[in-house]
């Protein structure tokens, strides 16, 4: 029961927010965006914790998911639920291009992904016949109304995102507890020993990259249909790489729920407090926060509480 306490607390908070702030469009809008970041942060942490890889390029998956879904729903007439799925798949497909980078060791992999993210942003700008280029892309469907629930309303979007974040967290947990998760946990510090008993390290890491890209693409796609406007500088913005990293580190990237809670808090902090203090360059505060966390509490706030528990930091749920 104690172990499920953070999850229960988050769920209660998720239910309480629309009851309290349901009428406040501003707050609900912030919560929706915060949950988008939460989904990406979850995906980023999955790759970091299970795959042992730090990515500075999740914006690539986010943008590809957004554009794929928007374009397919607008130009091919795909129903939005399907186009969301297609967006996620598109992002996963993109991550296939990144697989050769898996041959590179830690820091080089991180930089390679950063470089890939640049490529996708340039492509989205240049392929203007498909994406609308830097002029932007609009006139694509909003989230639909299904079974009487209007998902395009603030509260509807919010509910959808809460469910999707929860689903992704459950998938993450299932992977972590599976044999694959166990093998990946071993790989972090004993790669040879793990490979020599038959674990295909590269394949498992590839799966984690694929899954992480899939989830990121899904949230990118949902965000596109919520915002209803896309331009390369927005969809592939470095923000979609930076915010999830800060959220995951802040909340504790070795945990599942830490990045989720961290994302909402960080996003609210950035939008409500930081932007108020510094209308331009407000991310300097986020940078300071990230640097501070790495130096003082690299396992995150949730990690701080959990280091007292028995077992390796990896084992913390």
């Amino acid at each position, binding site marked *: 029961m104690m172990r499920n306490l953070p999850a229960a607390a988050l769920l209660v908070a998720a239910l309480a927010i629309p009851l309290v702030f349901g009428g406040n469009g501003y707050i609900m809008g912030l919560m929706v965006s915060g949950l988008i970041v939460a989904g990406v942060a979850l995906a980023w942490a999955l790759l970091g914790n299970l795959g042992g890889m730090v990515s500075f390029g999740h914006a690539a998956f986010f943008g590809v998911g957004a554009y794929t879904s928007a374009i397919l729903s607008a130009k091919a007439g795909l129903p939005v639920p399907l186009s969301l799925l297609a967006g996620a798949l598109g992002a996963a497909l993109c991550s296939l291009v990144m697989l050769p980078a898996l041959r590179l060791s830690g820091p080089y992999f991180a930089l390679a992904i950063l470089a890939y993210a640049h490529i996708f942003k340039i492509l989205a700008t240049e392929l203007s016949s498909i994406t609308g280029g830097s002029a932007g892309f609009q006139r694509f469907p909003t989230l639909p109304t299904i079974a009487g629930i209007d998902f395009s309303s603030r509260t509807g979007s919010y509910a959808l995102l809460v469910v999707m974040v929860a689903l992704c967290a459950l998938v993450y947990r299932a992977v972590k507890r599976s044999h694959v998760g166990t093998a990946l946990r071993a790989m972090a510090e004993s790669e*040879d020993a793990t490979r*020599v008993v*038959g674990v295909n390290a590269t394949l498992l890491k590839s799966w984690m990259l694929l899954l992480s890209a899939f989830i990121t693409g899904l949230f990118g796609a949902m965000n596109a249909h919520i915002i209803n406007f896309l331009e390369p500088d927005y969809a592939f913005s470095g923000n979609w790489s930076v915010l999830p990293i800060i959220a995951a580190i802040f909340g504790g990237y070795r945990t599942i729920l830490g990045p989720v809670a961290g994302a909402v808090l960080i996003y609210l902090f950035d939008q409500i407090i930081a932007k108020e203090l510094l209308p331009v360059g407000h991310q300097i505060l986020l940078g300071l926060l990230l640097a501070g966390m790495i130096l003082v509490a690299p396992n995150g706030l949730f990690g701080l509480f959990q280091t007292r528990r028995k077992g*390796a930091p990896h084992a913390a749920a």
Partner: protein
Amino acid sequence: MLRLEDVTVRFGGLVALKEVSFAMGEGEILGLVGPNGAGKTTLFNTISGLVRPRTGRILFKDREIGKLPLHARARLGLGRTFQIPQPMHHLTVRENLTVAQVFGAGASDPARIDEILEVMELAEHADRDAATELALQELKRLEVAKALATNPALLLLDEVLAGLESHAKRRFIAKLRELHQRYALAIVIVEHDIETISSLCSRAVVLNFGELIADGTPEEVFRNPAVVESYTGTADA
């Protein structure tokens, strides 16, 4: 079962293995002997896939495996231990064996894990953290247990008996015989003790400076003047 043809390994300018060739049959227990630095561990690393040979072929079950990655060779039935035990970190003893079984043997069979834990006398340590909560001899038994969990046809044992006092050593030798019987294993064992090799192996090969200098029954091998010289030679150096 296993055949090496003219396997040569270089590290930069250094020749670690020079045109090594030998073959072994099913169910054979082969002793691998030689002074320190002769290339025994390099030979294991080459067979198991940690090191790529510059030239030569490695055949396992009549299949060329010289270019296969580490994990693929494990799945074909090649199990090995490390001289310095390498448990999988952050995993319990049982999880170590489960990962080895699921990925190495391709099936999950908890009953067999229990059996291996029992045989290797690790049952009471099953839920301990492998990397931090085991003594050295338990770690060495875990090395063998992990290799066994992958359901191997051939087991490469790198000095698993080193550091054991004579009683424990006799027990471990008996254990190896039992494993050999029970799981129909072929075994290559690196060992310095002539007595152990003589009692356990039907055949021995000797490496010196990366070259195979003798191949035969333990008796023949240890009487071979070149082998005697290789040992006394390094002892003098």
